[in-house]
């Protein structure tokens, strides 16, 4: 008990020190003039880690009090702009520490005592000392600070403060540029030592002196870290094989050193991978994706548009492909990135088996018939494409860009075609045709763009000139047997055995000048003028097989030679008003074109002159940055094409013959577009909607005459009353209490088309009402789920005959699931379904589900090795199928397409100092 009583006061004393906070007080005085130091900062730091605990400023008499301090060991730091810093270590023994009177020393006195030492330079170039980084060994992964410590003449203290040749280093530059505000510590702590090639130490004149050229004597000791050019590579080798007879192999590599990039790839496949996918195109194809353009809009938005390039992914209608691709890409930048060079070459060869079967039912007021056709063929296409781009930013006012593209396409096609037309179980006609073509196409396009900025902001001038040359040669053979029946009895037989040789040449030059002038604040005027000239010559000679068995007898009616000249001038003016909430632009382009067509066979010249106008208006209102409304109107004149006015006569398909119409007028199309959208990130809701409407005056429509043999002659004529209207909206939200996002999208479209059948006007009204429901869930690096079924009701009604009318329901949907499993396994599956309401007029219902799945296992360090097992079209139901309701007929088409196969792929990823970009 006694012991306990003794302990209590000790405990209390201990508690007193720790629960009570500490106060430090004192008075400051000038050591020379004994003046009071108002506003000096008294900072109290924790001794263990220099963390600032409290601070205060001295009052008018130099007195200070810092209270509420916790702990017991402090650093007292007193600073004043014109006095030397004062530091003291304090240990709390009582609740108040009185430091008494502290004398501060003016800085002028301190400076005199600084001693300048000189270091030992390694290499001296002018007034710069250069250290070669690799000569100083540091541990792997060390930062620049550790490297600097090893350099003679340079000291780095515990706080990261750098002293070089006895002077404080004020700036650390990286490749001559400030690294986040030139704070020395940030660069030296964040950069790796092994990335540094040289450390250069010099005295940098003040920015003011560099700018004015007048030396103000102020010099900062500066370190410049010259970085090594990053060298490395990444790539992959994939080998895939499967049943039946499937393979998909590729190899890709991208090697870089600084700004220089060399990339190469090769693919061989018969699984539909006919080109690089977009991700690989970015990493190994030089970033150019066929048909894809991207850019930045005036209001800071980004856009990517994809129009499906020529080499785009296999559509499933072009048969079963077998392909070989290769590409090489080189790019580099010179003169501090002012000049860039970019060049690439691509080769592809695609062989494809094609099979297309069509069935159509045709109805005229007094008759109806069935058409069946079967086309089997083989195409082989070889493409070479070379491009080079050079861009130079000559100075801040001028830039030049030169692009040249050279393409060579050669394709060999052969096909066997059979068609028959049957009415009341009697033949009307049938046709057997064998064709083969060898088409060789060469094209060179070169453009030069000069952009000039003026001193006045937003005043710009640009001149773009494009020149192109195209040559197309075709050597074709046509053998056909066409039979025509009358009352079920064979009436007439045509046989054709011909060779046709075509030679087309085209050259064109087009120059466009655009000038932008700021009129008043937020308003600019853009004026433009373009002048284009095209010269084309088309020659076609058809030979009939002679009795000697050679193609040597010229068929005059199918041989011709034309020369076209086209001159187009297009002036235009646009006004842009760019306010914070309202963006408005309107303008008009006019085009004055002059065509001249010389028929060399007949020695006749025909001239056509067209004046076309393209008005447009754009308006956008931003309610808030997450809510906006757009309105857009464009008007467009389209002149008839020469093909529509006076087609070159061909006899490839004697049952469908196209003839010209010299009386065609220009058509004028109005397009209206309205859009409203908003999103709310916090409430996880979004909505967008749009309505578009178009109507055409003097629209180009088809007029067909069908004779009793089922032979159709058609031409283009003008008609009014063609329009289209479509509207859709989408509302997306998160389902409460779950992690699923759901969106609902009702849509509708209405189209009115016109055509003429045997002189009778036919109006076809089509409409579609649909609803799309999409559900998705995304968990980063774990799960990606999407399912989006849509249901629609389709309606088609023709005025000429009700037999081709249709009303049916359709359900389509696509879904996928990506799931990351433990042990580096990843499972992916996707499914697409198509169901159509049964139509008694069609032989089959054609509902099908395409289901694919794959399992990936990644292994070894950095997932170097990837094993993938995939099954394509598990249910073996994939079909190429299309259903179409036209004015007086309906058609269904079946395409030969890829079916079920499985594939096992081994991928080996290689990399050094780099990795391919992926995802977002």
């Amino acid at each position, binding site marked *: 008990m006694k012991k306990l009583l003794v302990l209590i006061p000790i405990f209390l004393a201990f508690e007193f020190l720790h629960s009570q906070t500490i106060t430090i007080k004192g008075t400051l005085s000038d050591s020379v003039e004994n003046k009071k130091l*108002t*506003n*000096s*900062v*008294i*900072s109290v*730091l924790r001794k263990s*880690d*220099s*963390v*600032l605990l409290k*601070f205060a*400023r001295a009052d008018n008499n130099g007195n200070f009090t810092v209270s509420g301090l916790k702990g017991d060991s402090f650093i007292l*730091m007193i*600073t*004043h*702009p*014109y006095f030397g*810093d004062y530091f003291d270590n304090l240990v709390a023994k009582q609740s108040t520490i009185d430091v008494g009177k502290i004398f501060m020393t003016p800085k002028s006195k301190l400076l005199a005592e600084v001693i300048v030492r000189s270091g030992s330079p390694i290499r001296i170039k002018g007034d710069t000392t250069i250290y070669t980084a690799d000569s100083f060994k540091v541990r792997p992964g060390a930062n620049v600070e550790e490297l600097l410590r090893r350099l003679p003449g340079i000291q780095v*203290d515990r*706080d*990261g*403060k750098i002293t070089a040749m006895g002077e404080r280093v*004020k700036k650390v530059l990286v490749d001559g540029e400030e690294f*986040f*505000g030139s*704070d*020395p*510590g*940030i660069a030296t702590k*964040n950069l790796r030592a092994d990335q540094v090639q040289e450390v250069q130490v010099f005295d940098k004149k003040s920015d003011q002196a560099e700018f004015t050229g007048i030396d103000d004597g102020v010099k900062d000791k500066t370190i410049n870290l010259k970085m090594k050019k990053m060298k490395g590579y990444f790539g992959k080798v994939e080998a895939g094989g499967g049943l039946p007879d499937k393979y998909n192999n590729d190899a890709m590599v991208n090697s870089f050193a600084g700004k220089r990039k060399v990339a190469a790839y090769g693919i061989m496949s018969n699984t539909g991978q006919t080109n690089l996918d*977009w*991700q690989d195109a*970015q*990493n190994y194809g030089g*970033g150019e994706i066929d048909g894809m353009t*991207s*850019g*930045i809009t*005036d*209001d*800071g*938005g*980004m856009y*990517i548009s994809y129009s499906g390039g020529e080499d785009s992914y296999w559509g499933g209608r072009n048969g079963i492909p077998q392909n070989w691709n290769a590409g090489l890409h080189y790019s580099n930048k010179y003169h501090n990135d002012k000049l860039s060079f970019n060049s690439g070459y691509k080769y592809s060869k695609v062989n494809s088996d094609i099979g297309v079967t069509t069935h159509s039912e045709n109805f005229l007021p007094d008759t109806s018939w069935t058409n069946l056709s079967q086309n089997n063929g083989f195409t082989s296409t070889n493409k070479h494409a070379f491009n080079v781009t050079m861009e130079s930013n000559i100075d801040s006012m001028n830039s030049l860009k030169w692009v040249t593209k050279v393409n060579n396409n050669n394709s060999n096609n052969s096909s066997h075609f059979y068609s028959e037309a049957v009415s009341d179980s009697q033949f009307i006609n049938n046709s057997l045709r064998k064709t083969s073509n060898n088409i060789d196409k060469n094209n060179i396009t070169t453009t030069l763009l000069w952009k000039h900025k003026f001193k006045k*902001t937003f005043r710009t001038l640009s001149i773009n000139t494009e020149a192109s040359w195209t040559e197309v040669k075709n050597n074709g053979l046509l053998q056909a047997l066409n039979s025509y029946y009358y009352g079920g009895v064979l009436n007439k037989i045509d046989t054709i055995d011909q060779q046709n040789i075509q030679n087309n040449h085209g050259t064109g030059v087009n120059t466009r000048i655009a000038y932008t002038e700021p009129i008043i604040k937020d308003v600019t005027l853009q004026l433009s003028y373009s002048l284009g000239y095209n010269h084309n010559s088309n020659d076609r000679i058809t030979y009939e097989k002679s009795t000697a068995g050679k193609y040597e007898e010229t068929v005059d009616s199918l041989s011709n030679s034309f020369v076209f000249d086209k001159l187009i001038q297009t002036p235009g003016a646009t006004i842009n008003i760019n306010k914070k909430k309202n963006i408005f632009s309107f303008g008009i382009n006019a085009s004055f074109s002059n065509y001249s067509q010389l028929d060399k066979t007949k020695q006749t010249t025909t001239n056509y002159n067209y004046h076309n106008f393209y008005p447009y208006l754009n308006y956008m209102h931003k309610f*808030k*940055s*997450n*809510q906006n409304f757009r309105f857009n109107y464009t008007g467009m004149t389209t002149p008839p094409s020469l093909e529509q006015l006076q087609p070159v006569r061909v006899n490839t398909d004697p049952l469908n013959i196209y003839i010209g119409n010299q009386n065609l007028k220009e058509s004028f199309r109005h397009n209206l577009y309205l859009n409203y959208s908003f*999103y*709310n*990130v*916090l409430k996880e809701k979004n909505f967008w909607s749009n309505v578009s409407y178009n109507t055409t005056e003097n629209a180009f429509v088809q007029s067909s005459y069908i004779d009793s043999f089922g032979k159709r002659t058609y031409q283009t004529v003008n008609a009014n009353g063609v329009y289209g209207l479509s509207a859709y909206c989408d509302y997306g939200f998160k389902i409460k209490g779950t992690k699923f996002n759901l969106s609902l999208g009702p849509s509708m479209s209405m189209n009115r088309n016109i055509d003429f059948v045997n002189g009778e006007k036919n109006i076809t009204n089509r409409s579609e009402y649909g609803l799309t429901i999409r559900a998705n869930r995304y*968990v*980063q690096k774990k799960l990606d789920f999407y399912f989006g079924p849509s249901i629609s009701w389709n309606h088609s009604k023709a005025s000429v005959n009700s037999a081709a009318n249709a009303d049916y329901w359709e359900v389509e949907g696509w879904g996928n699931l990506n799931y990351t499993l433990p042990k580096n396994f990843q499972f992916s599956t996707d499914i697409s379904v198509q169901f159509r309401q049964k139509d008694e007029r069609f032989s089959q219902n054609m509902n099908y589900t395409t289901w694919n799945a794959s399992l990936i296992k990644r292994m070894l360090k950095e997932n170097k090795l990837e094993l993938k097992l995939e099954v394509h079209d598990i249910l073996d139901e994939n079909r190429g199928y299309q259903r179409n309701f036209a004015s007086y007929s309906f058609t269904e088409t079946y395409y030969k397409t890829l079916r079920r196969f499985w594939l096992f792929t081994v991928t080996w990823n290689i990399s050094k100092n780099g990795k391919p*970009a*992926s*995802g*977002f």
Partner: protein
Amino acid sequence: MKKIFSLIPVLFFVIANAQQFVSNGSIEFEVRTNNHKAMGEGVWAEMFRDKIPQFSTNYYDFVFNEDKAVYKFNRSGDKAKVPFMSDNSENVWYSDYSSSTFIDQKNVFGDMYILSDSLMNINWKLSPNETREIAGFNCRKATGIIFDSVYVFAFYTDEITISGGPMGIHGLPGMILGITIPRMYTSWIATKLQVVDVDTKVIAAPSKGKKKKATELLDNVKKVTADWGSWGQQAIWGLFL
């Protein structure tokens, strides 16, 4: 010799003048962001890198009296609008350093909010011997951590008496004139100080927007951006600084 004599009165004038501490005025900050780094490394970023200038520069004003300040957008130094950049032009940061509270007006994904709360408490580690001159002031370096793990490098001067800084960054014995946050690829550096002709009436709490407690909104934003990856983090840092 004549020159030296004429210099002496000038020197005296400078010293006499410099003894004055600044307790109110307006400071212009130049805010620079490295767009190419901020975009990240995905395929889309690669596609757009060449189309976007490497740096974005914006100017903000910090207007202050003895213990209160307003920080807001002044103008952009960019020639064209840059994607990815959130619109901060209507944001206002009002801080009362005496009561350690703030009332901010912020554009949060398109909607205006009035956010209020206590100013964040930053543990600053001082490096008193590292100094740098910013806008003519001798500044000392301090290192702090915000949002649990984001390093902030700050330079402050004790010649300006307010313990403030751009946005909600504060707590040093003087005014912060320079900040670098490497993970946001952004630096804030004072370019000039104006003491006379400053309209101090602008130092007032903003009022345009839905009122909300900042911590509540932060929880909400954290929940929504949970699956955004690094984008979500950048969004949070940008919104709640």
